[in-house]
């Protein structure tokens, strides 16, 4: 009945595999031997109660935390340790649970900043802002304007993002991540603090990104409606351990998940 169920089955090769990853901070075990994989083109949800280690998992994936044990394989390459900017170069982009925008910049500049990686004219052309530097700037500006149109935020193009309401900030953050044209997009609670209408908008963006550009998405979200509707597969964490993994319907029915996370069945 749910379209996700049909689609999830026929997913392609594995884009990212997490094997036995553990992460400790002093005495706190944020993650314990977690393994799962993300296949190319799917929307993979990560859910779990507060403090279960979801954000930490994303941090491990893009190199902000270094797992104490275990391996992470991305695009066939296995690594123990990676620096965040390498992950970004490798095609991993993300949004953050606590909005981490560049507060004083305008929406436009924030998203442009997301394209820093793709821009490479040298310092001296930059100094004069002519020739290749200007051509590059204009070309990327076009891409950014497309993103702005796509996210329906043209009216705040020039507003410093620090003044935007929370919901729009989240949207800009998504735009910034999209600007990196990632292969794997990590979204940490992209819909927190939004009302229904905005959640609907956001869902649509996520789906469109996924379907039109084929971007693989890992999604953390506490709104079960969203998770169940959008994702192809769901992994559930609790106290740093994986307690379930499967299609939304499978997970929804899992008693351990109901017990640990959902409370009453939704």
């Amino acid at each position, binding site marked *: 009945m749910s379209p996700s169920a049909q689609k999830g089955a026929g997913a392609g090769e594995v884009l990212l595999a997490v094997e036995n990853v553990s992460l400790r901070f002093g005495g706190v075990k944020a993650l314990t031997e977690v393994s799962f994989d993300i296949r190319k083109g799917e929307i993979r949800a990560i859910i779990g109660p507060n403090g279960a280690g979801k954000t930490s998992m994303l941090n491990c994936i893009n190199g902000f935390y270094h797992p104490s044990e275990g391996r992470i394989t991305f695009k066939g390459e296995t690594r123990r340790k990676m620096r965040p900017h390498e992950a970004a170069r490798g095609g991993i982009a993300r949004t953050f649970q606590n909005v981490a925008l560049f507060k004083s*910049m305008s929406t436009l*500049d924030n998203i442009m900043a997301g394209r820093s990686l793709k821009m490479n004219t040298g310092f001296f052309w*930059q100094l*004069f802002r002519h020739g290749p530097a200007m051509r590059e700037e204009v070309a990327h500006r076009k891409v950014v304007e497309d993103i702005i149109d796509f996210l329906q935020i043209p009216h705040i193009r020039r507003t410093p993002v620090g003044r935007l309401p929370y919901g729009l900030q989240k949207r800009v953050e998504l735009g910034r991540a999209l600007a990196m044209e990632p292969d794997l997009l990590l979204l940490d609670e992209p819909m927190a603090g939004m009302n229904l209408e905005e959640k609907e908008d956001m869902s649509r963006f996520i789906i469109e990104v996924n379907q039109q550009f084929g971007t693989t998405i890992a999604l953390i979200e506490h709104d079960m409606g969203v998770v169940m509707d959008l994702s192809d597969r769901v992994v559930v964490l609790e106290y740093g351990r994986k307690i379930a993994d499967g299609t939304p319907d499978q997970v929804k029915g899992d008693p351990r998940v109901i017990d640990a996370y959902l409370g009453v069945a939704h």
Partner: protein
Amino acid sequence: MLYREAGQFKTTYASDMAVFRLREDRIGLAVIIAAAYAAAFLGSDFLLQAVLIPFLVFSLAAIGLNILTGYAGQLSLGTGAFMGVGAYACYKLMTAFPEVNVIVWVLVSGFFSAAVGALFGLPSLRIKGFYLAVATLAAQFFLQWCFIRVPWLVNYNVSGALDAPLRTLFGIPVVGATATPQTRYLVVLTLVIALTWLASNLVRGRIGRMWIAVRDMDLAAELMGIRLLQTKLLAFAVSSYYCGVAGALMVFLWYGGAEYDVFNINQSFFILFMVIIGGLGSLVGSFFGAALIFIMPIALGVVLPVVLSPFGLSVGAETIEHLRFMIVGALIILFLIVEPHGLARLWQIGKQKLLVWPFPY
């Protein structure tokens, strides 16, 4: 009603990305530049020599520090020393190769301070905020010590000081005793305009965005693929370049000779004042800040005696100086209270009000 965005449509991204998107702004800028050049011929020597030249020199230094502290968010208290590196490098170069045009050396000397700045910027990867200030203070005191201790830097001058030998540009003296305030002013003005233009190109482009990104949220920037160390070092280098050039201009086109002492810690603080009062992360702000911090005390020195004398108050030079200190201090606090983001923000708000005028919002 004169100042409106309406009716000015941008048809290309390039024109939309111009510095001044409004026609009125462009006209205003042209008028200001024209006036600045006209001042060379209309202004008195006092105006040129004691007000405008130093103002421009400080503006340049403030732009330098603003790039580092305002744009890239790295607090530096070593500006004075970086200016010194530029001045000493320029001195060495222009005495070693007297036949090369001095303007070339002024511009080249900046590269030396850029290199030194980048070196002292290395700890910035690990050290942040006020803690980073210590690294730059180490630079300040260490370099100052070098200026005193390495006589080679001043060509073993007995006085231990920098002097300004005669140097000409197209046969007209620009450095040295016989250079007129007019020529010096025109040279400084032209350099400052050119360098400001370059700086504004930089900060509006990819590099500027990377700097601001690092300042606003360095962790997020790193996760987006921005190399923190490189970005910060670039900021240190560019910033020091500007400071270095400003230092060279200060010694050779303003003072015309100076001791190491002009590059002391107070100089660093002085520039920092300008940047903060003017507005962090704003090039216009650097000019505003320099104007306020440098010219306000001078103006007070002129105005205070006039104001106080009718009251029969004892107006000794030192009383005026004390009052000047107090007033400058109070005004700094007042300005910060009125607008913590500096004069640049006040300016912006003013323009915004003008855009909607006559309506309040």
